């Protein structure tokens, strides 16, 4: 086995693991802290990607600048979604049903607006698609570097916020006992709205990176379910560091398996790893965050 080939596979897996972590972070936070299994996150990723495609193609905006457009926009969207969930008094199980309905609605919306056909940002509007930085003989794809950095920043920032800020203490208090937290002057609904906004913003951010190097179609979300839920479960619900670590593990394992045993083995190896890990660490490989 060519060492350079293994190195390339491992490095590429590491970087795409960052993207997986960014994709999974929102669901992990939502599920772990809000007790909402929000399948609509997948369509938020999709919407983030299509929005990036459309604005970049129409106005020539640099794809990286879409981060400052998508993040606040999706924060608001996520906050409004949580307001709806609060109003409808949605619990964990019903959140699965309702968010699945939202998933269908938003996917149909994407298909209606952009048709079912493939969309890709042109090379003229997106010079980053196959741009790489080379270290030794190993190529590091620029969009994936950005996704990895974003994942690290999100994981570190979110964990620090949850453990060292008043908001973070409020989140932990509400997760432990909402009524008691309320008695101490913490508004659980406000906490949930902000957290949902953050989770949705993370999903939109993942969509920005995906649009930079992948061809888009409304049905591409279905390919993400297995990977993202693997990362969420492997990392432990509500754990930003867990999502980052799990994303990296999944990316590297799948990448190395692809070159050692062939690409067909990658999903098998990844899910065997998931099963094995859960047998020994049912709550995930990494300790859950204080939230």
């Amino acid at each position, binding site marked *: 086995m060519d060492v350079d080939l293994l190195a390339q596979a491992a490095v590429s897996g590491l970087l795409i693991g960052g993207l997986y972590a960014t994709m999974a972070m929102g669901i992990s936070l939502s599920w772990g802290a809000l007790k909402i299994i929000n399948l609509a996150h997948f369509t938020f990723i999709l919407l983030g990607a299509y929005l990036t495609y459309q604005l970049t193609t129409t106005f020539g905006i640099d794809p990286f600048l879409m981060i400052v457009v998508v993040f606040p926009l999706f924060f608001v969207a996520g906050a409004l979604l949580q307001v709806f969930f609060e109003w409808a*008094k949605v619990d964990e199980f019903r959140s699965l049903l309702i968010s699945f*309905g939202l998933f269908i609605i938003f996917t149909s919306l994407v298909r209606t607006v952009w048709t079912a*056909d493939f969309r890709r940002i042109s090379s003229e509007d997106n010079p980053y698609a196959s741009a790489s930085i080379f270290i030794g003989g190993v190529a590091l794809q620029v969009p994936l570097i950005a996704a990895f950095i974003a994942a690290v920043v999100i994981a570190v920032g979110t964990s620090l916020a949850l453990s060292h800020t008043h908001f973070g203490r409020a989140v932990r208090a509400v997760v432990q006992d909402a009524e008691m937290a309320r008695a101490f002057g913490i508004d659980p609904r406000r906490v949930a709205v902000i957290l949902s906004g953050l989770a949705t913003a993370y999903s939109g951010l993942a969509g920005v990176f995906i649009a930079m190097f992948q061809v888009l179609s409304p049905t591409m979300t279905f390919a993400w379910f297995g990977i993202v839920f693997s990362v969420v479960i492997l990392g432990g619900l509500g754990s930003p560091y867990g999502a980052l670590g799990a994303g990296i593990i999944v990316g590297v394992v799948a990448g190395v398996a692809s070159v050692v045993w062939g690409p067909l083995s990658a999903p098998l190896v990844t899910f065997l790893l998931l099963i094995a890990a859960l047998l020994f660490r049912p709550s995930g490989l990494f300790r859950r965050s204080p939230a």
Partner: protein
Amino acid sequence: MRRERGIVPRFLILLAVFALVAAACSSSDDTTTTAAAAAATTTTAAEAATTTTSESSSEPIVVGGSLALTGFLAPTAAIHKVAGDLFVETLNESGGLLGRPVVWEPLDDESVPDQAAAIYERVISEDGVDLIMGPYGTGTITAAMAVAEREGFVYPHHTASLTYVYTYACHFPTWPTGIETNITNPNLVYDALEESGNPPETIAFVMNEFPGTQYIGYGPPGSDAGGAISEAEKRGWDVVAEINFPTGTSDWAPIAAEIAAADPDFIYVGAIGVDGTNLLVALDAIGYVPRGHFYQWPAPGPLLGAPNSEGAFSVTTFEPHSPFTDAAEPAAISEAFSTAAAAAGIPYTAFEAQASVSWAAWQVLIAGVEGAGSLDQQEICDWLINNEVETIIGTIDFDPAQQNYYGDLTKIKQIQNGQFVVVSPSEFAAPGAEPQL
């Protein structure tokens, strides 16, 4: 975090209903009414489906069927929807079929074979359609064919790749790759490479695990007939890599790295959809430029825009250039399709492989009905078996001895100067175009 104060099923029910209605209404710009409803509202349905109807107010002929209006096959099925709608519109403008207008309102099979089979069962046995047109895609066509056979309906179809599987006497394929696609198709590619004067010495295979591409690569399961790989070895080319990947692969970096490590003269990619585009992006990301490459069934628009796609080969049945458009009719069809595709929001509007086989399927169906002079399924079937049909992809002579296949009419095209042009066989090549490797 929240205390449930009681079940609020009304909201859930409302939301679920809204989701279903939204999904149903937004699945297509066209109304997806049932075939029965279309037949019931005769004049209204006919007017809705056509721009101008024949002066006859007779009951329309209803063609039933499905298409992948949603699901993973939808991007390409959209092309077949446009082609089919345009064909029906054109047909009705010229007097319809047997003096009657034609109505075609495909239902959404959501790219699911079981769904397609259920739809065909319904439109035949419940809605009582007069004719059927096959759906898009190998899986759905295969599933629906069983229904057509059981019900005794003539079954024209355009995109089923597992040619060795289909034994129904009245199935009429316009996917023109012949009964030995695994042998003829790759050899057409290899002949083109030989014609370039610089054939490869080493070749790598990157094959989607989709059954159609696996068939081309390895031959029918359980058979030692071989396919693209063994045919390459017969030509003395050294196979330096053989990579099979799952459908829907999103991480192409390992595959790209493996190809770069093997460094073949030519890469044969058993690609569907955007596989080729994603692979080229991944290869470019690691600084590798393929010296020669081929993509089996790519989405042409994204492939044209992919990095280093110049020189990529693929297969086709029609391209919008001479000699295909030398005659007025195909030229007009090509132009009309492009206009309709643009109106439908399809990014790549060229009338090429997918649209042409779709058009040909309709030509076969109409020729059969007109030849038989009736809507009797057996008479239509018999007529098609015993007569040639002139189609936009060539003359089709269905041969029962070959399970109604008729040889390989595939042409080889290549991206030259940013455009797909046919380069082989030479009689179909664009003026001045030759395979370049």
